[in-house]
């Protein structure tokens, strides 16, 4: 079976982590991929040093975008805005267990990270 739909991905898809909304969060951002209809809403809290302490997401979309969002909410805990800013496709592929995303799915996988980056910029 495809790399993309392995147990690990499906786990996160069927049982997303940190699903929901953090009320009154410092970071609060909606982002969508208009071309495919994927949508995420990301909220996040930081400590005084600017490290992420809690990240939640809501949204709908394909396995790739939703599993990536779910994994991301765990992956980024403890990181600073600068560390998030430097994350790229490679980090996301690694986070997803070393998959090699095809061109058509990159946007899906990057949606949550892009949202978080933008949310952190906006919260400055």
């Amino acid at each position, binding site marked *: *079976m*495809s790399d*993309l*739909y392995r147990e690990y991905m*499906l786990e996160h*898809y*069927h049982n997303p982590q940190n699903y929901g909304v953090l009320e009154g969060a410092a970071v609060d951002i909606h982002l969508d991929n*208009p*071309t*495919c*209809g*994927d949508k995420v809403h990301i909220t996040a809290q930081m400590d005084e040093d600017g490290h992420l302490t809690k990240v939640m997401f809501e949204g*709908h*979309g*394909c*396995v*790739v975008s939703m599993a990536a969002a779910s994994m991301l909410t765990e992956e980024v805990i403890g990181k600073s805005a600068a560390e998030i800013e430097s994350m790229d496709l490679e980090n996301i592929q690694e986070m997803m267990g070393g998959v090699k995303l095809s061109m*058509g*799915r990159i946007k*899906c996988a990057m949606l949550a990270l892009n949202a978080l980056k933008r949310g952190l910029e906006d919260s400055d």
Partner: protein
Amino acid sequence: MGFDVSEIRKAFPIFNRSVHGKRLVFLDSAASAQKPQVVIDAMTGIYTHSYANVHRGIYALAEEATEAYESTRHKVAKFINAPEPETVINVRNATEGINLVAYAWGNQNIGIGDRIIITEMEHHSNLVPWQQLAQRRGAELVYLPVTAGGELDLSVLPSLLAGGKTKLVACSLMSNVLGTVPPVKELVAAAHKAGALVLLDGAQAVPHIPVDVQDLGCDFLVFSGHKLGAPGVGILWARRELLEAMPPFLYGGDMILSVDKYASTWNDLPYKFEAGTPAIAEVVGLGAAIDFLSDLGMTAIHHHEQALVRYAFEHLSGIPGLQIYGPPPGPNRGGAVSFTLQDIHPHDIASILDEEGICVRAGLHCAEPLHTRFGLHATARASFYIYNDAADVDSLVEGLRKVVMILGRK
């Protein structure tokens, strides 16, 4: 199913390949069709034996290339029953054809308070040019609604046309999402009675059903070669009087009779609308594709696809949670079958089917307002052509069962 698909498939070299070790099941012809060997050979032939720039050339190579290039114009005219080959304009694709009309005819004929009617099921290429023209000229854009069953709601048409403000009705001859073939003759009659012209987007229809511009009575027709087995080239047909009254769209070589520093005179039809060096070999390829389809017969093609759609409806309906959009199988239904499957995202459907060698499209299919109308974020679409058969539908059904197994509600 009418004709011999296994023979037809042999004419398309791509079916010699496999995908991920599986048989290629190509169900995305509504996006772009595969090319038969005769089309590839026609282009290779020009490049190998008779290539030169067309028109004006006096030497043998140029004469041969021009003859091959111009012969397609005659084939296209016959194929859509255009009264004169000079009213057949070579453009890049259906999209450019529509934009040509929106600029050259639209800027001259659409003004403040005028109305343009399009439908809720238009492809963006037959929507955004009119939306932007209306904005540019202070005109009004109104939509003919689509019913829950995926048909055009013609009952609203008289009220939209009332008042004589409508200058143009632009409508697809076949929806690329729903497969709907609307009652265009009725629409043309009503529009003409109200003093409006009609542009038909034949991008989906021309490759799949017989299209006769004189019988339809339309004023403009566009279509794309790549959806009927030809390379990257498109056609705009329009009534002669309209083309003659329109200013040119693109300016440059070939479309002029004479150029002076501060004024130019335009060439005759069709050249007035063909600026610059045309896509020579591509147009020759279009001629070969039209010959290929004509040999099969457009009516036979339509029957074949109707049968496939019927078979697909029957077999897809057994999959739990699968919903098809658009009218039921029948003569006014093309071979595009769009569906959703439970709450599984169409991207995942397409990705998992790809693993099985099955090519379907997932997304909005360049018809976002139509998806909004149905409250959908995206659909998956399987679309049929001459090289598809019941076995392809069987593979699709099997593939979808696998999708449900992997991603379905527990």
